[in-house]
């Protein structure tokens, strides 16, 4: 998953607790600066639910909340570890390059 992938953004948002569509949209915009449109958001929610990474946390309705499953938490941890490895590698190389240039 890439950092701006809707599924990763949704999993990250749900890591702080269950949310419905509008709360997810607002939260993701606040922490990532990305506004997911309704079609993109619910397309990603459908895929995540199919893969068992999230589940509904309440009855059907206009504002049904979703929460992470244990598989979703694991998937998020793995995705974040991958991103962290890239961040660490990039940071190390940048420091080495700026150190070599100095």
């Amino acid at each position, binding site marked *: 998953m890439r950092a701006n992938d809707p599924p990763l953004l949704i999993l990250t948002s749900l890591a702080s607790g269950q949310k*419905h*569509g*509008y709360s997810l*949209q607002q939260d993701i915009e606040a922490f990532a600066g990305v506004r997911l*449109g*309704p*079609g*993109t*958001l*619910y*397309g990603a*929610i*459908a895929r995540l639910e199919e893969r068992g990474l999230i589940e509904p946390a309440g009855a*059907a*309705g*206009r*504002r*049904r909340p979703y929460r992470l499953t244990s598989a979703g938490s694991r998937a998020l941890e793995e995705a974040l570890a991958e991103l962290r490895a890239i961040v660490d590698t990039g940071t190390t190389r940048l420091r080495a390059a700026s150190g070599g240039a100095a």
Partner: protein
Amino acid sequence: MKRRVAFALRLYPRRFRERYGEELAALAAEEAGVRDLADLALGGVRERLREDGLAAVICAWALFVVAGCNVQKLAEHWQDAVPPGSRAVPAAAFDALVAAAAAGSALVLAGAALALPAALRLVRAGGRPYVRRPLLAAAACTAGAAAATAALAAGRQSFGVALAWLVLVLASLVAWTVAGVAFAARIELSPRTRRLEARLATGVAGAMTLMTLATAVWWAGVGSFAAAPALAASLLAMLASTALTAAAARSVS
């Protein structure tokens, strides 16, 4: 605005609407700007392609075949109208077009063969009433087209027979497309088969791209030989069906 949201929601497959429609409508109603409406509509197209992707590939291929046959008809005897020294590029483009058409047809047949076990399972599991009528119609049109072809081959080359042949061939293509869509809408494919179908669809999109490019190069090479409006319409249809196949291939997987 409510009407626009309701219209965009109708683009989604029924199953998706039943599951997420109420939530989607509520979210879209919060701040439904033009971008949100466009995103909602695009999401509907994506979900529709995801659910009916194979049917979309079948329809796109049928449209492409009609456009390709039109190009083939327009290209008859093109060598007579082009000086021998200027034939190399259009000849190579036309050969590429024919080769890509053969490759695309083989990939479509492979996709049909791959889905055959699922189609047989559908028939055995009581799906016969859904597909019987389209299959019978397709078989009848094909038999009629074969009879008209035989009549033409036997020398009965009147305008009426030629027209009947054209109508029956087109009807066969449409009828087999309808039958294919009827199967595609109801068969259950395993995730592995879906992935393989998606790869084949990507290959078909590649062959279509090559054919479209080859047609454009051939047209540029033969200049004013071919009827421009008819060829432009065919190229447009080829481009549209290629784009639809490429989008469906991504969604099927």
